[in-house]
């Protein structure tokens, strides 16, 4: 994507689903809202690729982790709002726990080296 000297803002491989689930666990959002929230909360470290995001939303909804609803936005436009389902919440717990486990393992490895 970016050239060598640009900072890598790609979402870490395999974490997009978890980031979406986490973001939606706070409040229902539409696609762009999710992308902006991830960007804001990560303080610009992650920029979400719109194509990947929309495809992922479709997939997660199909999997039953998200519910989708067409709603009017504040500027009276039709937008698809996603919210977390009960199974989605469980899935988030699983993925978060898994992620923590991996990250601490990586951290330990890095520490041991340093």
């Amino acid at each position, binding site marked *: 994507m970016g050239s060598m000297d640009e900072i890598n803002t790609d979402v870490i491989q395999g974490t997009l689903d978890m980031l979406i689930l986490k973001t939606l666990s706070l409040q229902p959002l*539409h*696609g*762009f*809202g999710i*992308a*902006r929230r991830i960007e804001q909360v990560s303080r610009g470290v992650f920029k979400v*690729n*719109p*194509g990947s995001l*929309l*495809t992922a939303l*479709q*997939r997660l*909804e*199909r*999997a*039953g982790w998200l519910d989708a609803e*067409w709603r009017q936005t504040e500027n009276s*436009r*039709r*937008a*698809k709002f996603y919210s977390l389902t009960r*199974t989605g919440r469980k899935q988030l717990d699983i993925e978060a726990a898994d992620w923590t486990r991996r990250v601490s393992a990586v951290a330990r490895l890095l520490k041991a080296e340093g």
Partner: protein
Amino acid sequence: MVWRQLTRGLRGVFQRRAADQDAADEVAHYLEQAAAAHRARGLSPAEAVRAARLELGNATGVREQMREAGWESAFDDGVADLRYAVRRLRSAPGFTAVTVLTLALAIGTTTAIFSAVNPILFEPLPYPHAGRLLVIDDRSQDGTALDVTFGTFRELTQRSRSFDALAVLKSWEPTNTGTDAPERLNGQQVSAQYFRVLGVPLVLGRDFDPADDRPGGARTVIVSDALFRRRLGADSGLIGRSITLDGSPFTVIGVMPHGFENVSAPSAEVWTLLQYDPAPPSFDAREWGHHLRMVARLRSGVSVDAARRDLAGVARTSSAEFIRPPWASLKSGLLLTRLQDRLTETVRPALLSVLGAVLLLLLIACCNVINLLLARGAEREGEFAIRAALGAARPRLMRQLLTESVLLALVGGACGIAVAAFGIRILVALGPADLPRMVAIRLDTRAYVFALFITTVIGLGVGLVPALHASRGDLHAGLQQASRRSAGRHRTRRTLVILEVSLALVLLVGAGLLVHSLNRVLALPPGFDPAQVLTMQVQVAGPRFGPDSVTHRHYAQALEAVRRVPGVADAAFTSQLPLSGELPDAYGVALETNGGDPQHGDPALRYAVTGEYFDALRIPLVRGRYLDARDAAGSARSAVISLSYARRVLSGADPIGRRVRFGSDTSWLTIVGVVGDVKQSSLFSSDDAVYVAAPQWVWADHARWLVVRGLGAVTALAPALKQAIWSVDKDQPIVRVGTMTTWVAASTAVRRFTMIVFEAFALVALVLAATGIYGILAGGVTERRREIGVRTALGASRREILSLVVRQGMGLTGFGMVIGLGSAALASRALVTLLFGVSTLDPVTYAGVIVLLLAVALLACGVPAWRAARIDPAQTLRTE
């Protein structure tokens, strides 16, 4: 979750537009929001939209990806493939029609044959634990099966330990009177346990009471569901009431369920008890005649072999309680056969070979279709190359081709069902009358499943070869002008043609051998002259015919009336008619030895005839005289014996004047003549026979065959003959009218049936092989136009070009024939039980088939060769 997948997926399939619209709206909304965010950061509106688009990338691609999140996208691909396949096939109507037709014929024929063979040979009989149903036969000295006597049955019910139930039965054809029109019914006289042996409970009323199964017991009948509806108005109040059969009252005690199949006599509709004497007064009684069939239900947990040992033990050891006459001594043992094997033994080899033949036909048809697909693949090479160049993956192309072939097969299969429905009707019409379980031959679920199965297998099978060819090698080469690339395809096509020719040859040889056999069988002397002889069975029934004298008088008067009909040369009555297909009527014969005890022999056929019988059938006189007017009711009792009996028992001594005793007849008959042997049950049979004058026999037969030799066209006499008989008594049934020639033909029905099926299949195979040869040569000529043009330009004569093509075609044919001859020599061994008087390597048949196949192949080569010879070199060279 599964539910969500399903509903959303189905929405994607059925409300495709709405689902697509949703995705488009979502993408559009995202773009709007992103653009708004960019504007908020200070970009101009146009720049903001551009930046948002840039971030998103290809909007169509994103929508496409979103759509692929669901399973329905794979379905969509399938639908797209299918749509494309339909379009491709419609754009080539000729190719599609020929392929579908070939497949429909092959699938339809195979399904029809399967529907016939499956219920007869492979499905169990329609009874609970049908594998336990067995048939027990007496064994004659030469090892063949013989009907059992009631005495043997009685002994086995007491002494055998292997069976739950045993029953004996014989056919019974009572006339039902007392309601509206009299009707002759088909039925059986059975012992009390018959329905317990079959294991089928009654639907209404009660089963037979064993206490009634003795002389003088209550006369009861159980009727079929069909008869219950037809004659008794399905009135359950009729249970316990009586109906009149043969002039006597019988109480209806029960009704069999709808759909009950009586495999031992499919047309039987009424059953009564045999009522034989459990303690027969003498060996001369009917209880000791070999005329009953015995069925048994094996006890659970007992093997057939154990039962066989049990029976052998009973046969070997005699008991004081059960004394056996010499003709039912069981000294040769008893035969135990599974009921299904017994029912199918006469047709099994024929059906299996027909099944084999249809599979060969199916294989040939598949070869032909593969060939057509390959030829079409050659035309479409450019198309595939372009699609590959545009990024179609190889598996995707293969899938496309397989979709096409499966679609072709499915259309062919659907048409094939129609062919099968038609084929089954032909099979049932052609099928020999002794084909068991005829009612089970129909297009049922099993047949549909079978058809679908072979259709799918064929669709994938025939598609695979062309698909592999199309996806093999460098597809890009197709875009360039290349003539070498089709070499592999050609090799496959040539192999297929060789295969087709060899398989067709196998079928042709089979058909040829069967035709020869049938001709040999029909050339067997029946012992009489069937030409210009009309026959019909004339019956009498009712209390009026109680006294024998009335019956005899009735037949005598009927015969006189028949003789007065113009066009009648000879007319006679006989108790049984040769080759009529009825069970033979045979009794043990005892010959009076010189002064000593009578010497008992095996059963001989009994014919109670009137004088002109021998003239009417032209049965030759060997010694002595025929029976005639001298042999009247009160005169000295005479008999005429067959040559085979005279030879076997008297071994050369003069039989005239010797005396025989026959069946339950207690007094002696003096032999007055010897006549030629007559085939009774089949053209192969050679049974001894004894002829007696009907008025001199111990009872008066109530069903006799009228045999009339006409002066001219004999079939036209039938109405006049019936009128003549009815002029004596209009209420007596006349059945089974037919010429002697038709009886002879009917006796070879299984052979004829197999032969016709083989002939039909061989003919289709020949046509398919010929089109295969034609197809490859025609395609070859088209592809080699340039080469042929060059050859002609370089001075090759038309004759040389002609021979070039013909040589190629005949080369393939010759190769196929060599393989075919070897295969035929092996495969025709499977036909050996169906052949008669012909070796499986019969040189005449093989030579005939070779000539026929060569001629047809030459014809198939002719057209392409002629076209090749007419190629104008100037024109072809210009187009290149």
